[in-house]
């Protein structure tokens, strides 16, 4: 109970009779809550009921423990023993609360934890009792993720808005597109929110959109706008964003244009602009070499197919080519056939399913039917899966957690069965599972299963830093998907070198694909983001890589020609690697110049931070 010595003489009307509402200081209103007095009176006159002395003392102890002693110190961390925010996240949250009055644009680069910063600010205000009702507007795809993070990391009882009555909960996460529609709109515009948080706020850069106007009209005390790209092409975007947060902070539109902008795009008076920005915006970016990823160690495992499996492969390949030739080189209708070609490298189960479906679709008198049946017969000849056996052997050798990726559901099912029959605990993971089941599978994998068999690498929530072995049972023809797979394991938080095993069957197209991705693009060791550049440039001139590959395969007369064409593709991709990114190549245009200037401005506003995995 700190008391401050006063330099000010006591006020004249000291014996005021109206304690319930008066002034302590010319600027300070004072309210004294009297509701307890009546309750005490009435309990005395009714002679009870009276509460327990121990609970009375505990109530005081609880209040003492929760009391906020100072204006300045961050209080929320005492309540969050499990959370270990990075230093820049803490300092950002502190700055928002103590220097910016709780209204700010959080503009960190991707991956530096804007959500954590926003969560810290929200929690701090909630712990201090300054925020009770909060509204969090995010893109629909991120709603559940926000709810989870707020609940798990911050102990904030946030709910995802699903029914109209849920708007009355204290902390609601919703998609902005839902919120702005009636009947929700009316309801929200008639509420007061202690805090409003908007994720992906760069979508609000246009003043004329309904989203922008809706957010302007919401009544809010504190407000956070989160975006990694506060300005992209045009300084007006930044102006609009700040006007949404604090109208007038950069003056009126014309003043802003006159003071800070040349030719619509180029900033001027950068010193003052910088100063004005730093009162409403915080941007952290990665320092040079700030991120230290562990190494990737790639190993290709060559596999010799059994004669029966090879026969099936050749049979399917022949079938696919024959159909392609007959159709006259029309690639679009060949989709299911190309799938067949890819599946045959994975497992017989995958091919079987597609063949049966194909069989059902063809007319009863079609000449295709006997051919398909022939292939099915070939499948029946196969008794063992060489690849699966090799995978089992690998996993047993490692004796550690492994994630195994396959493209096909049928292969996944087969492997689950196969591993189980060899006393290896494996759990499945696929895109079609609902959130709860996905989480459950993750928990099982973390806990007692040695292997996770996944068909899906994309999507949120599959962060597997605790595992550093990965097997590509089959390889997608789209390199981005491969990169996505690796990214699940090789990311911030991974402390071990990541070992990647590619299973590749000799004498099949898989061999070429592995060779292309590994030797030619060196995909597995690329710096993060580099693959994007290569593919962007490649696809500018040609069609998507997986289509190119499909075409090559269908059109080549024999394995020599196929090999030659793969080599050619490899070397053209290799050339693209060395070139600088696209956007740097055309910096003769005004647009690029303006972007460079805007980028420089952003860099001035921002501060570099060290990020360790």
């Amino acid at each position, binding site marked *: *109970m700190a*008391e*401050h010595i006063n330099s*000010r003489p*006591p006020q004249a009307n000291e014996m*005021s009779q109206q*304690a319930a509402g008066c002034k*302590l200081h010319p*600027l*300070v*209103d*004072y*309210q*004294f809550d009297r509701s*307890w007095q009546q*309750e*005490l009176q009435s309990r*005395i006159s009714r002679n009870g009921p*009276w*509460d*327990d*002395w121990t*609970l*009375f*003392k*505990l*109530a*005081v102890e*609880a209040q003492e*423990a*929760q*009391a*906020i002693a100072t*204006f300045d110190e961050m209080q929320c961390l*005492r*309540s*969050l*023993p499990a959370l270990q925010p990075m230093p820049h996240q803490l300092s950002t949250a502190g700055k928002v609360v103590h220097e910016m*009055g709780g209204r700010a644009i959080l503009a960190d680069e991707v991956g530096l934890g804007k959500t954590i910063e926003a969560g810290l600010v929200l929690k701090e205000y909630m712990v*201090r*009792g*300054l925020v009770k009702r909060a509204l969090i507007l995010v893109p629909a795809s991120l709603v559940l993720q926000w709810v989870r993070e707020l609940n798990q990391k911050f*102990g904030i*009882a946030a709910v995802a808005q699903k029914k109209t009555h849920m708007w009355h909960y204290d902390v609601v996460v919703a998609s902005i597109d839902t919120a702005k529609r009636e009947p929700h709109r009316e309801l929200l515009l008639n509420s007061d929110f202690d805090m409003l948080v908007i994720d992906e706020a760069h979508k609000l850069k246009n003043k004329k959109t309904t989203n922008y106007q809706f957010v302007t*009209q919401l*009544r*809010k*005390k504190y407000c956070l706008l989160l975006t990694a790209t506060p300005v992209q092409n045009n300084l007006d975007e930044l102006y609009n964003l700040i006007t949404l947060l*604090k*109208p*007038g*902070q950069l003056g*009126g539109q014309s*003043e802003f244009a006159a003071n800070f902008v040349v030719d619509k795009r180029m900033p001027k008076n950068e010193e003052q602009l910088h100063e004005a920005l730093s009162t409403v915006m915080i941007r952290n970016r990665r320092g040079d070499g700030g991120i230290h990823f562990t190494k990737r160690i790639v190993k290709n495992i060559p596999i010799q197919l059994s004669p029966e499996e090879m026969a099936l492969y050749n049979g399917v390949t022949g079938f696919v080519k024959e159909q392609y030739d007959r159709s006259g080189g029309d690639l679009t209708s060949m989709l299911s056939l190309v799938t067949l070609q890819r599946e045959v490298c994975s497992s017989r189960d995958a091919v079987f399913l597609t063949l049966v479906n194909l069989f059902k679709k063809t007319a009863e008198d079609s000449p295709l039917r006997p051919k398909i049946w022939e292939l099915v017969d070939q499948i029946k000849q196969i008794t063992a899966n060489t690849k699966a056996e090799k995978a089992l052997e690998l996993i047993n050798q490692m004796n550690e957690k492994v994630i195994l990726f396959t493209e096909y559901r049928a292969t996944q099912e087969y492997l689950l069965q196969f591993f189980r029959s060899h006393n290896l*605990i494996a*759990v*499945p993971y696929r895109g079609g599972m609902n959130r709860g089941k996905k989480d459950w599978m993750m928990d*099982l994998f973390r806990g*007692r*299963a040695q292997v996770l068999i996944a068909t899906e690498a994309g999507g949120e929530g599959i962060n597997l830093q605790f595992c550093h072995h990965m097997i590509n049972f089959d390889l997608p023809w789209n390199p981005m998907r491969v990169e996505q797979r690796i990214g699940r394991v090789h990311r911030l938080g991974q402390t071990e070198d990541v070992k990647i095993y590619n299973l590749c069957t000799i004498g099949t197209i898989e061999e070429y694909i592995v060779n292309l991705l590994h030797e030619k693009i060196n995909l597995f060791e690329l710096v993060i983001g580099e693959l994007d550049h290569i593919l962007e440039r490649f696809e500018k001139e040609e069609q998507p890589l997986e289509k190119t590959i499909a075409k090559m395969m269908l059109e080549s007369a024999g394995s020599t020609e196929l090999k030659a064409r793969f080599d050619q593709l490899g070397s053209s991709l290799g050339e693209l690697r060395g070139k600088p990114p696209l956007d740097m190549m055309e910096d003769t245009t005004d647009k690029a110049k303006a972007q460079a200037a805007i980028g420089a401005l952003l860099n001035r506003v921002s501060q570099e931070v060290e990020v360790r995995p």
Partner: protein
Amino acid sequence: MNQKQVHRFVQQYLESTGCHIIEKSPAHFVVKLSPEADRMLTNRPYYWSFVDRTGAEPETMSFLLVTDKEKYELSQQAADAAVSTDNAPASGSTPRTAGTVTGTPPLSPGASVQAAVNSALARSYGIVPSQLLSTPRLPRDDVHFGSKRLLQLFDAVQSRGSYVYLFQEPDTRSRSPFQSTPYTPWLGVNLKVEFQCDRKREELYSFGVSLATGHCRELFHEQLSSLKMTPRLPSNVHIAPAGITLNKAIHIVEMTLERKLKAQCYRWAEEAQQRLDEEQKIVSHYYDKLLQSADEELKAEITRQYDSRKAEIDWQYRPRVTATAINCGIFHLQGIE
């Protein structure tokens, strides 16, 4: 609040609400709640209304409350290790080890049914959740400062510890059975004062006013908390007659607090007002310009926005102080004052 304080707090709550503590260590409690505590903590209003209406015997819930996670988990690991070495010769005869994947053959018919169930589950899920199936439900809660459970306990003690009427337990040694001890009734109030602008801090006050003389003591709760109190009037005690009314005593509390608050430093409020004025100036500058150049039909909308923005700033920054009572009561203490 550190872990020890949390632990003591939880223990005092459980004991004073009559819960049955089944097992405890300095790091955890296993507790079967009393009906009173169950109503407060388990959020089962439908169940309790069912019990109240039908008069059924209530079945309260049990919890594992962990107040020191690290210590508890260490001790669990140690216990598990001890169990598994003990059981090694008995090869899976306890339900505990039935779930582990050792592949030991089941011994009894019951175990073989269990194994069949497990393998059926294993076929669909790839995992045997036998731990879940074989033991009764004992939800675990990690109770630390800031955890939901502790906040709930804070609310519970607040609602069940608000108004008291108590007598100090007489000191038995110094009492003669022929002499009556004089007691004075006191009004005791604990108050929370919140100083708020866009930021906030709090102070707690505790006052006691003698209903005999009107004398006002500060830090009253601190003086009480070491005393033994009882809800019943002790024998051989006489209460001093009230010299002032309860209303007068309440007024004395209000005045004393107000005087103390007025004597404080209000630099923070002046600074907040300055921020408020600056923000208002920026906003006026922006909207006045906008209004000048705006089309007639837009003016109404702009004015509306202008007003709402001004109100927001006022809401955000305006300095204010509020005082609320945490709890209060009448305390009869030994002696005349």
